[in-house]
């Protein structure tokens, strides 16, 4: 253990195996970092019978998350961290007020060559990976670049009573609804894709999840959020890529 680490004990929410794996790829944990943002969610009117995106709401929900993440970036900068692991963003709503809180563990490269792991602007990387996933990714020849979000708040059209009567007893697809939710998900996905490209990731995005949120809005208004970790290949001839995968039989019961 280096002298600096002995003087400033670290805090982290990593488990012991995560800690060991982190050390194995040459990183050390620094501190648990927290970020928060408070937003007032306004109201955007929408046409009753129209499928449409509520663009102001979409932008706000994205901005709120980005603000919480910027808070984390600032702390990571002050700590001299090269990255943040296990980042997650939680939303707590009370009426029109929303609190977005982000939490993660700041890490630093021991060898001092952490700049290779930072993004194009010299900022720390962010990701929602566990220590084990981070280890596997780095050993597999990739590095995380940024936790990226794509947001789409969508108003789904109401259906006229006339068409309701027509379909009451039949099996049939509801093309307007299909279209609305399909579109909204695709928009969220295409935004997460372009945000990753903006962040300078050249590999792709892993672990993408499309989440659906309601947050006590009108029942026809939904938020679709796509989130994932953008990755880039490590361009370094000296980087050690891990050995071939093997079939193992674990002696555990599960």
């Amino acid at each position: 253990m280096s002298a600096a680490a002995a003087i400033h004990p670290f805090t982290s929410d990593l488990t012991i195996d995560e800690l060991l794996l982190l050390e194995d790829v040459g990183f050390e944990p620094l501190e648990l970092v927290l970020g928060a943002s408070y937003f007032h969610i306004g109201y955007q009117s929408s046409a009753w019978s129209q499928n449409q995106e509520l663009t102001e709401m979409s932008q706000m929900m994205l901005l709120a998350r980005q603000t919480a993440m910027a808070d984390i970036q600032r702390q990571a900068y002050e700590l001299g961290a090269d990255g943040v692991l296990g980042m997650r963003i939680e939303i707590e709503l009370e009426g029109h007020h929303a609190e977005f809180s982000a939490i993660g563990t700041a890490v630093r490269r021991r060898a001092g060559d952490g700049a290779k792991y930072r993004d194009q602007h010299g900022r720390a990387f962010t990701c929602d990976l566990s220590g084990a996933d981070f280890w596997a990714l780095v050993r597999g020849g990739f590095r995380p670049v940024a936790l990226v979000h794509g947001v789409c708040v969508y108003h789904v059209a109401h259906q006229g009573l006339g068409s309701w009567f027509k379909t009451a007893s039949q099996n049939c697809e509801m093309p307007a609804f299909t279209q609305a939710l399909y579109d909204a998900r695709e928009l969220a996905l295409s935004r997460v894709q372009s945000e990753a490209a903006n962040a300078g990731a050249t590999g792709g995005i892993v672990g993408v999840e499309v989440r659906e949120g309601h947050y006590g809005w009108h029942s026809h208004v939904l938020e679709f959020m796509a989130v994932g970790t953008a990755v880039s290949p490590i361009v370094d001839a000296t980087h050690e890529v891990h050995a071939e995968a093997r079939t193992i039989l674990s002696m555990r019961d599960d």
Partner: protein
Amino acid sequence: MSQPQGTPQRPQTQRQALPQHAVERIQRSRNAQGQRFFTSDLSVKEFLLVRESGFECAGLVMGSSFYHVGYQRSDWSQNQEMTVLTQAMYQARELAMARMEEEAHELGSDGVIGVRLHVNRHSWGEDLIEFVAVGTAIYARDGSPWRAPNGMPFTSDLSGQDFWMLLKSGYRPVSLVMGNCVYHVAHQSLRGWFKSVGVNQEMPNFTQGLYDARELAMERLQYEAQLDGASGVVGTQIHESTHGWDAHVIEFFAVGTSVLPIAMKEAPPAPVLVMTVNE
């Protein structure tokens, strides 16, 4: 090979038109230099294993279908299949799957792994059910053909780990196959209830109903796999849900991945025994 009785029809429209934003997203997954940029819902471990199997991620693909489920009256004291509901639940899933396959086709991929089928309900519309199919499209790095016999990308609900293991053991996925059956289980008569209240005994009525329904779902799954020209099905799971209907109306949904043997270059690897120190 004859069609099992009451098998729901596959939707006629095989090729699906994609929504505008899906087409745009797929186009944007290649940059101006034609270089690919993928999105995937694979975990890091799955992503690395897919690469090690000789594949690359092409992108996240999905399909959705919002479906109105018709009404069917059931006889209170009768065990019977609710054919209208069976048909609806099957067709809607097939539609969502077909759209997902179309996205995978547009991406120029060889197949889709990790397919998950979700059933959503929204607070508006009681008889409306949304079906979503999501998976990650992949393609072979060396350009070798992996598509299913019908020329579309293969589909499978296997995880990245399972996919790696399946290839290592000499099989390839062909298609995600499914079979379902919505069944009404008869209510017990009052007299029957009085007779059985104080005794331990099997309820042949209920046994029969649920047994039948599961067998029907399995039989349809098997038939689908045979239609797709597969030699077997792995990872079959049977899900059971009432989807908010009457408690006596249950859907049995069987889903699995059909597989075909491939020519093996080497013997499958022998497993290594390990003891993990994880809890």
